[in-house]
């Protein structure tokens, strides 16, 4: 069935009163409204902003307080640098799209973002791998700059897995990782707390947005 993406007008309540013939249209509108809620409005999403040091001599004696530049320093420590983003999935979290904000400096080394999904049994960061995931590389999928001033401050860019329902060869194969695609959640883990593990190289991560992918059509 088609999943509506808007709040459509509901039928008149009086159409449900005693003595009224139950019209198919009335029941159909209820079914459609509930499908919109379950498979559109209440899809899971998480929006992580990643705060970085705001130290700057521009602040004077105050020394810090807020981000002053539309870019973030790519520190020399950002090599195979790991983040773990916890995501409370829903029962219909089949695929997760990722949208990330980053700044990348290719003079610091090869630039990449790897993303995988893990279970969170025993609250561990090293839980069972559900999808070994994907890799964004420059220049195909990432925009990187050369700012040869030591620890660079490249401007923010966006990276996105897309939402396409593409065939996944085997989400448990580690080498090579797939190019960007939505991450796949096995049915047994839908509704669990998941760990979206992201590893960056020569790149500063500014924000990570995680989405359940909306499907236009679902089989009842």
């Amino acid at each position, binding site marked *: 069935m088609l999943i509506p*993406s808007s709040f459509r007008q509901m039928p008149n309540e009086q159409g449900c009163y005693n003595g009224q013939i139950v019209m198919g249209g009335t029941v159909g509108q209820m079914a459609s409204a509930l499908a919109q*809620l379950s498979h559109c409005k209440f899809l899971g999403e998480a*929006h*992580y902003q990643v705060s970085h*040091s705001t130290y700057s001599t521009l602040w004077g004696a105050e020394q810090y*307080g*807020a981000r*002053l530049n539309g870019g973030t320093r790519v520190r020399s420590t950002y090599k195979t640098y790991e983040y773990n983003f916890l995501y409370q999935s829903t029962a219909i979290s089949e695929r997760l799209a990722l949208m990330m904000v980053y700044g990348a400096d290719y003079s610091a080394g090869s630039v990449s973002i790897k993303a995988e999904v893990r279970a969170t049994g025993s609250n561990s960061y090293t839980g069972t791998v559900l999808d070994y995931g994907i890799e964004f590389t420059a220049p195909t999928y990432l925009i990187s700059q050369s700012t040869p001033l030591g620890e660079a401050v490249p401007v923010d860019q966006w990276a996105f897995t897309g939402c396409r329902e593409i065939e996944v060869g085997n989400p448990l194969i580690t080498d090579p990782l797939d190019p960007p695609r939505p991450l796949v959640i096995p049915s047994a883990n839908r509704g669990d707390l998941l760990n979206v593990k992201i590893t960056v190289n020569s790149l500063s991560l500014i924000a990570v947005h995680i989405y359940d992918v909306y499907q236009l059509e679902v089989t*009842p």
Partner: protein
Amino acid sequence: MSNSFTSTPTLVDPGRVTAAQTIRTTEVSRLGDLQNYLFATGGSHNVVSQAFDDLCFIQDSLAFVSMCEWKIPILSKAHDTLVINVSGYCPTAANATAQFTITMDDSTTYTTTISITDQSRYSSVFNQGTITITGNHAGDSATLTMELKAPSGQEAVILSVQANWQALTSPLTTGELETENGSFIPQGISRLGADLPLTARFGVESLANINTLRARGRVLFNWSGVESASSALAITQAGAPPRAIGRGDLPTFYSPAALFGGTVESGLTVKAYINVLNLGVGDSFTFLLMGNTLTLSANGWTEFELDLMQDELPISDQFGLSMYRIGVDERTANVNGIASPSYPPSSSGYVAGLTIIGV
């Protein structure tokens, strides 16, 4: 008469409820099942999601220091357990401790403490705590405050904070369930089976339930500055987190998120909650958010209902949904409401927290 539901949810085949078709009990039963599922689980994904680079969110105080504050939506009065997960570390066997407090609209508070057990960045586990709401409180949002303390001679570092309301389990309790935006009548599934009359009440209640669920909030953006960070390390190395939204944030400080057609026509609203600090008596400033010009004239949290007047983002085509820029506007007119060396947090009012809750 069990108010049960199935998960994964079952949808109603629209082809079975068109004119000239007999309405089977399967369809009616699924309508009731789906309502129960939605009340139990809708909106139980992340309500707080924020991450911090290493040595940024850091504390060396032996006593609790209040450092972050977020607004979170209240799903219903039956959703009484907030699950909080903290990633952090303290380089000693003695654990650092985070304390979370929910403050309801009537000022009632509920607290939990979480020991942070890792001793280096992402070395082993994140730590979890829960807050249980026991009273009956009005309001469709609450304030979540985070405090942090370290053991003697050590420093506690926070890497991320995640929270979500725990979904209810099947079956729902009997009787009317309250939300701030209306009541929800759970549907007795056995009453919707074969050989039982389909009451007028089922239709009326279903419509009311759908309207109640449509008004339930979902978090589209939630950010808190970090106050009172403290470290023995030099400020060049540690302890310089953002306290305020700054001019460098403007280009990308938003969530691309879906808003749904019919929101305004259904009488639903998108709300922004803004936490202002350090505003002098009689002072005010304007803040531009999603095309709205908001005047902030008091310290603490202020709530606004936003007019929806933005254009869709081009990324809508990818998502198949109408996606919008949910966050701060990148406009030069925003300069007075945004921290910069000309408006430093030490001497100007500043935005220390921003939460946007849509429907």
